[in-house]
């Protein structure tokens, strides 16, 4: 698809917005429809769109394989890390209310957002890995 002008231009215009929409969906997970899984898929699909239009090799330059592998583990690490942080601050595992001592209710929302980002990062990395394995490598 590298020589076709319409997908290139439209893709170039769309990708930044898709990249922005993913974190929006994750961050607003507790306010409206969406959450870590959906936002992660949207984030991953932005990278997949880039790879579809400009080729897997170009996509690899923008986001090396090592970085994707690190993100793969980073997401679940963030999730479990928030849980352990609750333990260290004197609560139980995955108890977010102790994260901010002065305002437990807001701390719950903060913990949920962090955890959703963990889910989103892992899901996005898995989606990109899936696509790269199927499309890129023989």
């Amino acid at each position, binding site marked *: 698809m590298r020589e076709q002008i319409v997908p290139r231009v439209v893709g170039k215009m769309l990708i930044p917005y898709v990249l922005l929409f993913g974190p929006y969906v994750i961050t607003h997970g507790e306010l409206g429809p969406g959450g*870590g899984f959906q936002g992660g898929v949207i984030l991953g699909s932005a990278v997949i769109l880039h790879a579809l239009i400009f080729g897997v090799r170009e996509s690899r330059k923008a986001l090396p394989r090592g970085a994707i592998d690190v993100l793969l583990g980073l997401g679940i690490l963030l999730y479990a890390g928030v849980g352990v942080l609750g333990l260290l601050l004197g609560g139980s595992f995955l108890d977010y209310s102790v994260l901010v001592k002065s305002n*437990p209710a807001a701390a719950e929302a903060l913990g*949920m957002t962090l955890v959703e980002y963990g889910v989103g990062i892992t899901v996005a990395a898995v989606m990109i890995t899936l696509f790269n394995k199927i499309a890129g490598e023989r």
Partner: protein
Amino acid sequence: MDSVFLYDVTLLALMTATALAVVTVRHLLAATMLLGFYSLLMALVWNNMYAMDVAFTEAAVGAGVSTILLIGALVHTGTKEREDGKKHWPELLLVVVTGAVLIYGTFDMPPFGDPSAPIHHHGAPEYILQKVGKAAAHGSEDESGHESHAGAGAGSAHGDDEFAGHVPNLVTAVLADYRGYDTMFETAVIFTAGVCLVLLLRPANGRARRRRGRRDRRPEPAEEAP
């Protein structure tokens, strides 16, 4: 006639037609696109049930990413289905019987949308009001925090819940907070799938490919044993 009913019947007819088309069409690329269309219709069904999060996932994963992944797989397999004139009667019988049993099982379920169904009364009201009793375990410190924040959250649907109105989307409250363990291990499952993919589909170097070839030629160990 009830407009929701009409909408549902229209969607069901469209989905049945799409599913039949997916089964009958011979061109695999067309079948993949039809599957994406099926997912979009399914997202409309979820939308109709006010299950926005599920609709969102269906549209993003079912219609979006999985279609792309299937097309990516088609690049390797080719887009023509192998002609196979045989009819598989035992398989058809099995599928029909299983489907009949499942439909028979739905006769015992309460009618669709029945507010007096058991599922709406056991636990669900507490989760919807977000008053499950999490905060009570923390003692008085939490309570004071709630009260100081109640004024700010009073404008929301329920400012006096366990999150002081911070989490209006109760689906996220259940997934990320009340059922945080479940979601964490779901993420672990996705992570494991990704790691397995990296390990299994690593580009095979020459030695690995030779070894695999040798293993395939070797006779079964069970035959050597006696």
